[in-house]
């Protein structure tokens, strides 16, 4: 089966700074892949490189078996969408929810915009009462739901999630994660999810990759992680850190 997303030997460099070096991974259709690592480990850069927001200096990215060039075409954006980390910064401050959702439909020339907007809002659990609000009239969780609705309105098959819940408080986090799980099951979406929270990744993803300094440390399955079957010291360190502070004597 062709993987939904296959990355081979990807490198990203900004001038002299190497943000990503020789990273390879592949995600099966309907799979959910997690990227973990500390700040600056290159996990967000990887997502941005896939989306075309960061320039790849080496390696290839292939979606559904098709290798992407340096310029993405419209068909790519129908297939791959992204949800940003900060819901307070990812919605245009002067546009209503309606306008935000209309924009992708207008760009891609859909004519049943009205139906799709109503449906998209329903799907993410926001009624039509939210349709004509401005983003400053929404809470953080509601904003992230709108961002998810916007990403899904083009019916992509791959969703890139850049720490979608790290800016939200704990109870809202769970809501948004559950919503993403539901949508993935309902639409057979492929997820690539970045997080620094191991618990979130083990909950959401079936496979994951640990990254450090722009390089792969190791790839694991969620089951491996749960069973503590890790081979690298760095991953062990991350695991220990995620369990919180322990008073060893």
């Amino acid at each position, binding site marked *: 089966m062709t993987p939904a997303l296959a990355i081979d030997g990807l490198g990203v460099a900004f001038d002299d700074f190497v943000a990503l070096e020789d990273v390879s991974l592949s995600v099966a259709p309907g799979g959910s892949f997690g990227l973990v690592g500390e700040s600056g480990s290159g996990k967000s850069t990887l997502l941005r490189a896939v989306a075309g927001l960061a320039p790849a200096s080496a390696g290839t990215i292939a979606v559904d078996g098709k290798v992407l060039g340096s310029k993405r075409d419209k068909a790519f954006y129908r297939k791959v969408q992204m949800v940003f980390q900060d819901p307070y910064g990812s919605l245009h401050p002067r546009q*209503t929810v309606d306008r935000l959702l209309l924009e992708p439909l207008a760009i891609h020339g859909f004519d049943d915009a009205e139906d799709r907007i109503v449906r998209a809002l329903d799907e993410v659990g926001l009624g039509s009462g939210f349709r004509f609000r401005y983003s400053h009239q929404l809470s953080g969780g509601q904003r992230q739901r709108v961002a998810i609705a916007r990403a899904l309105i083009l019916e992509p098959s791959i969703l890139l999630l850049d720490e979608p819940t790290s800016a939200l408080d704990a109870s809202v986090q769970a809501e948004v994660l559950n919503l993403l799980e539901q949508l993935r099951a309902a639409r057979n979406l492929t997820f690539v999810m970045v997080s620094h929270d191991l618990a979130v990744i083990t909950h959401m993803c079936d496979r994951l990759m640990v990254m450090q300094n722009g390089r792969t440390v190791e790839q694991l399955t969620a089951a491996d992680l749960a069973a503590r079957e890790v081979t690298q010291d760095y991953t062990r360190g991350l695991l220990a850190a995620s369990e919180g502070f322990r008073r060893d004597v």
Partner: protein
Amino acid sequence: MSETAMTRREWLLTDRPQSRLQARLGRAYVAWRRFTANRLAVVGLLIILGMVFLAIFAPLLAPHSPYVGDLAKSRLMTPGPAHWLGTDDQGRDILSRLIYGSRLTLQVVLLVAVIAAPIGLLVGTVAGYAGGWVDAVLMRITDIFLAFPKLVLALAFVAALGPGIGNAIIAIAITSWPPYARIARAETLTVRNSDYILAVQLMGASPWRIVLRHIMPLCISSLIVRVTLDMAGIILTAAGLGFLGLGAQPPLPEWGAMIASGRRFILDQWWVAAAPGFAILVVSLGFNLLGDGLRDALDPRGSGQ
């Protein structure tokens, strides 16, 4: 009565607008309330509206003809019941000339704003969003225009194009867009890498679409404020060109030209030059007050909530 007013207010301020129109009106209403909270700004608005009223109904309001005076009997008359603001050296009623002159002033101000603001907005947003050599070229052109004093550059253009009110407008417009380009570019640079612009990019929007539909609306409010504050300067530049004989040509009742002709007898018949000077002062003040109020009402940093 008060109950329907309350419900209309609630309809405008609701958290859950039911339609695009309601959402837009609600936003406009919030801005309007913030604007009217500033008393001086309302005074400025009233001055400008009064001037528009005078300009529209000039033929009905002016007591005499602005062009024809009685050279034999009514030259340089003091202000009095027959001529409220006196007459000039051609025996023409100064009040009537002022009223008709408001048309010219408005025409200059509006046309300059309509020509200069979009040019500046387009140049600035395109330069800011495109970056690289496009930015460098556009901004160096802007710098060249900015390097000249406005009036001197306008003088050069009028000298090249020939005197006249139309050419004065073109000259002023050509010299007044660079500051707008600078503002628009600065605003664009602050938003171009924000997530919401990247998100639109990720939808496959073309650069033109992003600039026109997503970046420009964010720059417009600070631009409107700046243009309104510049109106006073535009009026003064137009009056300056008129004063130097390069703007409106006689017998047009342009305020600057009126001051120029009154200059010759300023010591004995001071009102000939004072009346148009006072008119320029009041209108400039009106625009400045209006601009200040708009800044408070439209400031993107203040209006987020």
